[in-house]
Protein backbone atom coordinates (compact mmCIF):
# COMPACT_ATOMS: atom_id res chain seq x y z
CA UNK A 1 0.00 0.00 0.00
CA UNK A 2 2.39 2.67 1.20
CA UNK A 3 6.04 2.92 0.27
CA UNK A 4 8.40 0.55 2.06
CA UNK A 5 10.15 2.13 5.02
CA UNK A 6 13.73 2.58 3.90
CA UNK A 7 16.36 1.38 6.31
CA UNK A 8 18.37 4.25 7.76
CA UNK A 9 21.96 3.91 6.68
CA UNK A 10 24.57 6.15 8.16
CA UNK A 11 26.83 7.56 5.51
CA UNK A 12 30.13 9.32 5.68
CA UNK A 13 28.60 12.18 3.72
CA UNK A 14 25.88 13.26 6.09
CA UNK A 15 26.46 16.94 6.75
CA UNK A 16 23.91 17.48 9.48
CA UNK A 17 22.85 15.32 12.36
CA UNK A 18 20.12 12.72 12.57
CA UNK A 19 16.53 13.75 13.09
CA UNK A 20 15.62 13.71 16.73
CA UNK A 21 12.60 15.04 18.47
CA UNK A 22 12.54 15.34 22.17
CA UNK A 23 9.64 16.42 24.28
CA UNK A 24 9.79 17.56 27.84
CA UNK A 25 8.39 14.93 30.13
CA UNK A 26 5.48 16.13 32.16
CA UNK A 27 6.96 17.44 35.39
CA UNK A 28 6.03 20.15 37.84
CA UNK A 29 9.01 22.20 36.68
CA UNK A 30 8.98 22.28 32.88
CA UNK A 31 12.33 21.29 31.38
CA UNK A 32 13.51 23.31 28.35
CA UNK A 33 12.77 21.63 25.06
CA UNK A 34 15.00 21.70 22.04
CA UNK A 35 13.81 20.28 18.81
CA UNK A 36 16.45 19.16 16.36
CA UNK A 37 15.36 19.25 12.78
CA UNK A 38 17.21 18.50 9.59
CA UNK A 39 15.98 21.51 7.67
CA UNK A 40 18.18 21.52 4.58
CA UNK A 41 20.00 19.01 2.46
CA UNK A 42 22.42 19.73 -0.32
CA UNK A 43 22.55 17.44 -3.32
CA UNK A 44 24.73 17.63 -6.39
CA UNK A 45 22.90 18.86 -9.49
CA UNK A 46 24.59 15.84 -11.03
CA UNK A 47 23.26 13.59 -8.28
CA UNK A 48 20.13 12.36 -10.02
CA UNK A 49 20.16 9.13 -11.96
CA UNK A 50 18.84 9.28 -15.49
CA UNK A 51 20.59 12.31 -16.94
CA UNK A 52 23.66 12.63 -19.14
Amino acid at each position, binding site marked *: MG*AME*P*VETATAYQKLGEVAETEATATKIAAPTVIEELLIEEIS*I*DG*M*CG*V*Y
Partner: protein
Amino acid sequence: MSADALVSQLKQGLDAPICLTWEITYACNLQCVHCLSSSGVRDPRELSTAQAKAVLDELRDLQVFYINIGGGEPMIRKDFFEILEHAEHNNIGVKFSTNGTYIDAENAKRLAEMNYLDVQISIDGTDAATNDAVRGAGSFAVALRAMNHLRDANFGPFKISVVVTRHNVDQLDQFKALADSYGAQLRITRLRPSGRGVDSWNELHPTQAQQRQIYNWLLAHGDNVLTGDSFFHLNALGESLPGLNMCGAGRVVCLIDPIGDVYACPFVIHDQFKAGSIFDEGGFTSVWRDSKLFLSLREPESAGACTSCGNYDSCQGGCMAAKFFTGLPLDGPDPECVIGAGEALLQSTRISLIPKPAMDHSRSVRLNAPTSVSVR
Protein backbone atom coordinates in the same frame (compact mmCIF):
# COMPACT_ATOMS: atom_id res chain seq x y z
CA MET B 1 12.58 15.17 7.61
CA SER B 2 15.39 12.62 7.29
CA ALA B 3 17.36 11.96 4.10
CA ASP B 4 15.30 8.82 3.51
CA ALA B 5 12.07 10.71 3.94
CA LEU B 6 13.22 13.19 1.29
CA VAL B 7 13.97 10.37 -1.15
CA SER B 8 10.53 8.89 -0.42
CA GLN B 9 9.01 12.26 -1.28
CA LEU B 10 11.00 12.54 -4.50
CA LYS B 11 9.94 9.07 -5.59
CA GLN B 12 6.37 10.32 -5.61
CA GLY B 13 7.36 12.86 -8.23
CA LEU B 14 7.37 16.64 -8.34
CA ASP B 15 5.39 19.24 -10.27
CA ALA B 16 8.39 19.78 -12.52
CA PRO B 17 11.62 17.91 -13.14
CA ILE B 18 14.65 18.95 -11.11
CA CYS B 19 16.85 18.34 -14.11
CA LEU B 20 16.30 16.76 -17.50
CA THR B 21 18.15 15.58 -20.56
CA TRP B 22 17.34 17.14 -23.89
CA GLU B 23 18.79 15.41 -26.91
CA ILE B 24 18.62 18.05 -29.62
CA THR B 25 19.71 15.94 -32.57
CA TYR B 26 20.21 12.33 -33.64
CA ALA B 27 22.95 13.46 -36.00
CA CYS B 28 26.49 12.63 -34.98
CA ASN B 29 29.87 12.60 -36.65
CA LEU B 30 31.00 9.65 -34.52
CA GLN B 31 29.54 6.17 -34.12
CA CYS B 32 30.52 5.08 -30.63
CA VAL B 33 29.79 1.38 -30.14
CA HIS B 34 27.70 1.95 -27.02
CA CYS B 35 25.73 5.03 -28.05
CA LEU B 36 22.66 5.16 -25.83
CA SER B 37 20.64 6.99 -28.46
CA SER B 38 21.79 4.98 -31.51
CA SER B 39 22.72 8.27 -33.14
CA GLY B 40 24.30 8.97 -36.50
CA VAL B 41 21.80 10.24 -39.02
CA ARG B 42 19.66 13.31 -38.42
CA ASP B 43 15.95 12.59 -38.10
CA PRO B 44 13.92 14.66 -40.59
CA ARG B 45 11.36 15.33 -37.84
CA GLU B 46 13.99 17.08 -35.71
CA LEU B 47 12.65 20.14 -33.87
CA SER B 48 13.04 23.46 -35.64
CA THR B 49 14.80 26.38 -33.97
CA ALA B 50 11.43 27.90 -33.08
CA GLN B 51 10.20 24.65 -31.61
CA ALA B 52 13.41 24.26 -29.63
CA LYS B 53 13.02 27.76 -28.18
CA ALA B 54 9.43 26.97 -27.25
CA VAL B 55 10.66 23.96 -25.30
CA LEU B 56 13.01 26.21 -23.37
CA ASP B 57 10.21 28.71 -22.72
CA GLU B 58 8.10 25.96 -21.24
CA LEU B 59 10.96 24.72 -19.07
CA ARG B 60 11.47 28.28 -17.87
CA ASP B 61 7.80 28.50 -16.90
CA LEU B 62 8.17 25.23 -15.00
CA GLN B 63 11.22 26.61 -13.24
CA VAL B 64 13.50 23.86 -14.42
CA PHE B 65 16.83 25.31 -13.30
CA TYR B 66 19.27 23.17 -15.18
CA ILE B 67 19.19 20.94 -18.23
CA ASN B 68 21.60 18.55 -19.89
CA ILE B 69 21.81 19.00 -23.63
CA GLY B 70 23.10 16.11 -25.72
CA GLY B 71 22.32 14.11 -28.79
CA GLY B 72 23.95 12.73 -31.04
CA GLU B 73 26.47 15.53 -31.20
CA PRO B 74 24.57 18.69 -30.19
CA MET B 75 27.10 21.11 -31.69
CA ILE B 76 26.27 19.76 -35.16
CA ARG B 77 23.08 21.80 -35.13
CA LYS B 78 23.58 25.10 -36.95
CA ASP B 79 21.43 26.84 -34.34
CA PHE B 80 23.39 25.35 -31.43
CA PHE B 81 24.59 28.68 -30.04
CA GLU B 82 21.21 30.26 -30.64
CA ILE B 83 19.63 27.56 -28.50
CA LEU B 84 22.25 28.01 -25.79
CA GLU B 85 21.75 31.75 -25.73
CA HIS B 86 18.00 31.37 -25.50
CA ALA B 87 18.49 29.14 -22.48
CA GLU B 88 20.86 31.66 -20.92
CA HIS B 89 18.40 34.53 -21.44
CA ASN B 90 15.68 32.49 -19.80
CA ASN B 91 17.71 31.63 -16.74
CA ILE B 92 18.06 27.96 -17.57
CA GLY B 93 21.46 26.57 -16.66
CA VAL B 94 22.87 24.29 -19.33
CA LYS B 95 25.36 21.48 -19.33
CA PHE B 96 25.98 20.09 -22.79
CA SER B 97 27.72 16.84 -23.58
CA THR B 98 30.00 16.75 -26.62
CA ASN B 99 32.71 14.71 -28.31
CA GLY B 100 34.61 17.96 -28.80
CA THR B 101 34.85 17.90 -32.60
CA TYR B 102 33.36 21.38 -32.94
CA ILE B 103 35.16 23.05 -30.06
CA ASP B 104 37.78 24.99 -31.97
CA ALA B 105 39.53 28.10 -30.66
CA GLU B 106 36.74 30.39 -31.77
CA ASN B 107 33.92 28.32 -30.29
CA ALA B 108 35.85 27.81 -27.08
CA LYS B 109 36.08 31.56 -26.72
CA ARG B 110 32.39 31.94 -27.43
CA LEU B 111 31.54 29.32 -24.82
CA ALA B 112 33.81 30.99 -22.29
CA GLU B 113 31.82 34.19 -22.58
CA MET B 114 28.53 32.53 -21.65
CA ASN B 115 26.94 32.35 -18.23
CA TYR B 116 25.35 29.34 -16.54
CA LEU B 117 27.12 26.98 -18.90
CA ASP B 118 28.85 23.67 -18.21
CA VAL B 119 30.68 21.73 -20.89
CA GLN B 120 31.15 17.99 -20.63
CA ILE B 121 33.64 16.26 -22.94
CA SER B 122 33.14 12.53 -23.44
CA ILE B 123 36.07 10.13 -23.48
CA ASP B 124 36.27 6.44 -22.64
CA GLY B 125 39.98 5.86 -22.26
CA THR B 126 43.09 7.67 -21.09
CA ASP B 127 44.94 6.74 -24.24
CA ALA B 128 43.97 6.64 -27.87
CA ALA B 129 44.00 2.83 -28.08
CA THR B 130 41.48 2.33 -25.29
CA ASN B 131 39.32 5.30 -26.19
CA ASP B 132 39.25 4.91 -29.94
CA ALA B 133 38.35 1.22 -29.75
CA VAL B 134 34.96 2.38 -28.48
CA ARG B 135 34.61 5.86 -29.95
CA GLY B 136 36.42 5.60 -33.27
CA ALA B 137 39.82 6.40 -34.73
CA GLY B 138 41.02 9.89 -33.92
CA SER B 139 38.30 10.62 -31.37
CA PHE B 140 40.71 10.76 -28.44
CA ALA B 141 42.91 13.33 -30.11
CA VAL B 142 39.85 15.39 -31.00
CA ALA B 143 38.63 15.37 -27.41
CA LEU B 144 42.00 16.44 -26.05
CA ARG B 145 42.20 19.21 -28.60
CA ALA B 146 38.82 20.47 -27.42
CA MET B 147 40.01 20.43 -23.81
CA ASN B 148 43.09 22.40 -24.80
CA HIS B 149 40.95 25.01 -26.55
CA LEU B 150 38.73 25.37 -23.49
CA ARG B 151 41.77 25.78 -21.29
CA ASP B 152 43.36 28.31 -23.63
CA ALA B 153 40.13 30.29 -23.77
CA ASN B 154 39.99 30.38 -19.96
CA PHE B 155 36.65 28.64 -19.97
CA GLY B 156 37.19 27.55 -16.40
CA PRO B 157 36.41 24.12 -14.97
CA PHE B 158 34.73 21.81 -17.47
CA LYS B 159 33.71 18.18 -17.03
CA ILE B 160 35.22 15.04 -18.46
CA SER B 161 32.68 12.24 -18.67
CA VAL B 162 33.60 8.59 -18.90
CA VAL B 163 31.43 5.54 -19.39
CA VAL B 164 33.06 2.82 -17.33
CA THR B 165 33.72 -0.36 -19.31
CA ARG B 166 35.62 -3.59 -18.88
CA HIS B 167 38.52 -2.02 -20.74
CA ASN B 168 38.91 1.26 -18.90
CA VAL B 169 38.12 0.33 -15.32
CA ASP B 170 41.85 0.02 -14.58
CA GLN B 171 42.36 3.60 -15.76
CA LEU B 172 40.29 5.34 -13.09
CA ASP B 173 43.35 6.86 -11.41
CA GLN B 174 44.59 8.11 -14.76
CA PHE B 175 41.20 9.62 -15.60
CA LYS B 176 41.35 11.51 -12.32
CA ALA B 177 44.87 12.69 -13.09
CA LEU B 178 43.82 13.79 -16.56
CA ALA B 179 40.92 15.79 -15.16
CA ASP B 180 43.17 17.30 -12.47
CA SER B 181 45.70 18.33 -15.10
CA TYR B 182 43.05 20.51 -16.75
CA GLY B 183 41.46 21.68 -13.53
CA ALA B 184 38.42 19.78 -14.81
CA GLN B 185 35.94 17.65 -12.90
CA LEU B 186 35.83 13.95 -13.57
CA ARG B 187 32.54 12.21 -14.07
CA ILE B 188 32.27 8.44 -14.37
CA THR B 189 28.96 6.84 -15.29
CA ARG B 190 27.52 3.41 -15.60
CA LEU B 191 27.26 1.72 -18.97
CA ARG B 192 23.70 0.64 -19.72
CA PRO B 193 22.70 -1.79 -22.50
CA SER B 194 20.79 1.02 -24.23
CA GLY B 195 20.76 2.06 -27.86
CA ARG B 196 23.72 0.48 -29.61
CA GLY B 197 24.90 -0.49 -26.14
CA VAL B 198 22.68 -3.56 -26.31
CA ASP B 199 24.94 -5.04 -28.99
CA SER B 200 28.17 -4.42 -27.12
CA TRP B 201 26.93 -5.01 -23.57
CA ASN B 202 28.35 -8.50 -23.22
CA GLU B 203 31.81 -7.40 -24.32
CA LEU B 204 31.89 -4.07 -22.54
CA HIS B 205 30.10 -4.20 -19.22
CA PRO B 206 32.31 -4.55 -16.15
CA THR B 207 32.66 -7.96 -14.54
CA GLN B 208 31.50 -8.57 -11.02
CA ALA B 209 35.03 -8.18 -9.71
CA GLN B 210 35.34 -4.91 -11.61
CA GLN B 211 32.07 -3.65 -10.11
CA ARG B 212 33.66 -4.04 -6.71
CA GLN B 213 36.74 -2.26 -8.00
CA ILE B 214 34.62 0.69 -9.14
CA TYR B 215 32.79 0.83 -5.82
CA ASN B 216 36.00 0.71 -3.78
CA TRP B 217 37.61 3.33 -5.98
CA LEU B 218 34.65 5.70 -5.53
CA LEU B 219 34.76 5.27 -1.78
CA ALA B 220 38.50 5.92 -1.67
CA HIS B 221 38.91 8.61 -4.34
CA GLY B 222 35.47 9.77 -5.32
CA ASP B 223 35.32 12.92 -3.24
CA ASN B 224 35.29 15.28 -6.15
CA VAL B 225 34.15 12.76 -8.77
CA LEU B 226 30.64 12.95 -10.18
CA THR B 227 28.69 9.81 -10.98
CA GLY B 228 25.27 11.05 -12.01
CA ASP B 229 24.06 8.81 -9.20
CA SER B 230 24.43 5.94 -11.64
CA PHE B 231 26.14 3.42 -9.39
CA PHE B 232 23.53 3.07 -6.68
CA HIS B 233 23.15 -0.61 -7.60
CA LEU B 234 26.58 -1.05 -6.01
CA ASN B 235 25.41 0.23 -2.64
CA ALA B 236 24.63 -3.34 -1.67
CA LEU B 237 28.40 -3.77 -1.30
CA GLY B 238 28.57 -1.61 1.79
CA GLU B 239 28.05 2.00 2.78
CA SER B 240 26.06 4.06 0.33
CA LEU B 241 27.74 6.22 -2.26
CA PRO B 242 26.84 9.92 -2.25
CA GLY B 243 23.79 10.95 -4.21
CA LEU B 244 20.08 10.41 -3.93
CA ASN B 245 20.60 6.72 -4.67
CA MET B 246 17.36 6.35 -6.51
CA CYS B 247 16.19 5.99 -10.08
CA GLY B 248 15.14 9.46 -11.14
CA ALA B 249 13.32 8.42 -14.31
CA GLY B 250 9.86 9.94 -14.53
CA ARG B 251 10.16 11.22 -10.99
CA VAL B 252 12.77 13.95 -10.95
CA VAL B 253 14.25 13.63 -14.43
CA CYS B 254 13.22 12.63 -17.93
CA LEU B 255 14.30 12.87 -21.57
CA ILE B 256 13.05 15.07 -24.38
CA ASP B 257 14.32 13.55 -27.61
CA PRO B 258 15.21 15.30 -30.90
CA ILE B 259 11.70 14.87 -32.34
CA GLY B 260 9.93 16.03 -29.18
CA ASP B 261 9.07 12.66 -27.68
CA VAL B 262 9.26 12.39 -23.92
CA TYR B 263 10.80 9.29 -22.35
CA ALA B 264 11.40 8.35 -18.72
CA CYS B 265 15.16 8.78 -19.20
CA PRO B 266 17.75 8.72 -22.00
CA PHE B 267 18.51 5.06 -21.38
CA VAL B 268 15.03 3.80 -22.18
CA ILE B 269 14.25 5.11 -25.64
CA HIS B 270 11.55 2.51 -26.22
CA ASP B 271 7.77 2.65 -26.54
CA GLN B 272 7.31 1.02 -23.16
CA PHE B 273 8.96 4.04 -21.54
CA LYS B 274 7.57 6.73 -23.77
CA ALA B 275 5.37 9.09 -21.77
CA GLY B 276 4.13 11.24 -24.63
CA SER B 277 5.21 14.12 -26.80
CA ILE B 278 5.73 17.84 -26.38
CA PHE B 279 3.15 18.15 -29.15
CA ASP B 280 0.45 16.53 -27.02
CA GLU B 281 -2.30 18.80 -25.82
CA GLY B 282 -0.97 20.51 -22.73
CA GLY B 283 2.59 20.14 -23.96
CA PHE B 284 5.52 18.86 -21.96
CA THR B 285 3.94 20.10 -18.74
CA SER B 286 0.94 17.83 -19.09
CA VAL B 287 3.13 14.88 -20.06
CA TRP B 288 5.29 15.42 -16.99
CA ARG B 289 2.37 15.84 -14.61
CA ASP B 290 -0.33 13.57 -16.00
CA SER B 291 1.05 10.90 -18.32
CA LYS B 292 0.12 7.33 -17.45
CA LEU B 293 3.73 6.19 -17.59
CA PHE B 294 5.08 8.82 -15.24
CA LEU B 295 2.23 8.41 -12.80
CA SER B 296 2.91 4.69 -12.69
CA LEU B 297 6.64 5.28 -12.12
CA ARG B 298 5.68 7.45 -9.13
CA GLU B 299 3.75 4.63 -7.51
CA PRO B 300 5.53 2.72 -4.75
CA GLU B 301 7.88 0.22 -6.32
CA SER B 302 7.54 -3.49 -5.83
CA ALA B 303 10.63 -5.47 -4.84
CA GLY B 304 9.20 -8.50 -6.61
CA ALA B 305 11.78 -11.24 -6.78
CA CYS B 306 14.11 -9.16 -4.59
CA THR B 307 11.66 -8.98 -1.68
CA SER B 308 13.52 -11.43 0.52
CA CYS B 309 16.94 -9.93 -0.20
CA GLY B 310 18.28 -7.73 2.57
CA ASN B 311 20.11 -5.56 0.04
CA TYR B 312 17.03 -4.20 -1.70
CA ASP B 313 16.86 -1.06 0.42
CA SER B 314 20.41 -0.20 -0.67
CA CYS B 315 20.31 -1.18 -4.32
CA GLN B 316 16.60 -0.61 -5.04
CA GLY B 317 16.77 -3.45 -7.53
CA GLY B 318 19.14 -1.45 -9.73
CA CYS B 319 18.42 0.14 -13.09
CA MET B 320 15.23 -0.22 -15.12
CA ALA B 321 17.12 0.23 -18.39
CA ALA B 322 19.71 -2.41 -17.53
CA LYS B 323 16.98 -4.92 -16.78
CA PHE B 324 14.78 -4.02 -19.71
CA PHE B 325 17.42 -4.24 -22.40
CA THR B 326 18.82 -7.51 -21.13
CA GLY B 327 15.36 -9.03 -21.19
CA LEU B 328 15.09 -9.30 -17.41
CA PRO B 329 11.84 -8.58 -15.55
CA LEU B 330 11.65 -5.10 -14.06
CA ASP B 331 10.64 -6.37 -10.61
CA GLY B 332 13.72 -8.48 -10.09
CA PRO B 333 17.51 -8.22 -9.94
CA ASP B 334 19.66 -5.99 -12.08
CA PRO B 335 21.88 -7.87 -14.58
CA GLU B 336 24.83 -6.57 -12.59
CA CYS B 337 23.34 -7.40 -9.19
CA VAL B 338 26.33 -7.55 -6.87
CA ILE B 339 25.32 -10.85 -5.33
CA GLY B 340 25.00 -12.41 -8.77
CA ALA B 341 21.23 -12.84 -8.73
CA GLY B 342 20.94 -11.12 -12.11
CA GLU B 343 23.59 -13.29 -13.73
CA ALA B 344 21.93 -16.38 -12.32
CA LEU B 345 18.58 -15.34 -13.71
CA LEU B 346 20.06 -14.61 -17.14
CA GLN B 347 21.65 -18.04 -17.24
CA SER B 348 18.72 -20.00 -15.89
CA THR B 349 15.92 -18.56 -17.96
CA ARG B 350 15.66 -18.52 -21.68
CA ILE B 351 15.49 -14.85 -22.51
CA SER B 352 13.29 -15.08 -25.54
CA LEU B 353 13.07 -11.45 -26.43
CA ILE B 354 15.59 -8.68 -25.99
CA PRO B 355 13.67 -5.45 -26.69
CA LYS B 356 15.00 -3.31 -29.50
CA PRO B 357 15.36 0.45 -29.08
CA ALA B 358 12.49 2.52 -30.50
CA MET B 359 14.53 3.97 -33.32
CA ASP B 360 17.92 3.43 -34.84
CA HIS B 361 19.63 6.43 -36.39
CA SER B 362 22.95 4.65 -36.73
CA ARG B 363 24.86 5.08 -39.92
CA SER B 364 25.36 1.98 -42.00
CA VAL B 365 29.04 1.39 -41.21
CA ARG B 366 29.47 0.41 -37.58
CA LEU B 367 32.36 -0.04 -35.20
CA ASN B 368 32.65 -3.49 -33.68
CA ALA B 369 32.85 -3.72 -29.94
CA PRO B 370 36.37 -4.45 -28.72
CA THR B 371 36.82 -7.77 -26.97
CA SER B 372 40.17 -6.62 -25.69
CA VAL B 373 42.29 -3.57 -26.10
CA SER B 374 46.01 -3.70 -26.67
CA VAL B 375 47.68 -0.69 -25.20
CA ARG B 376 51.11 0.38 -26.33
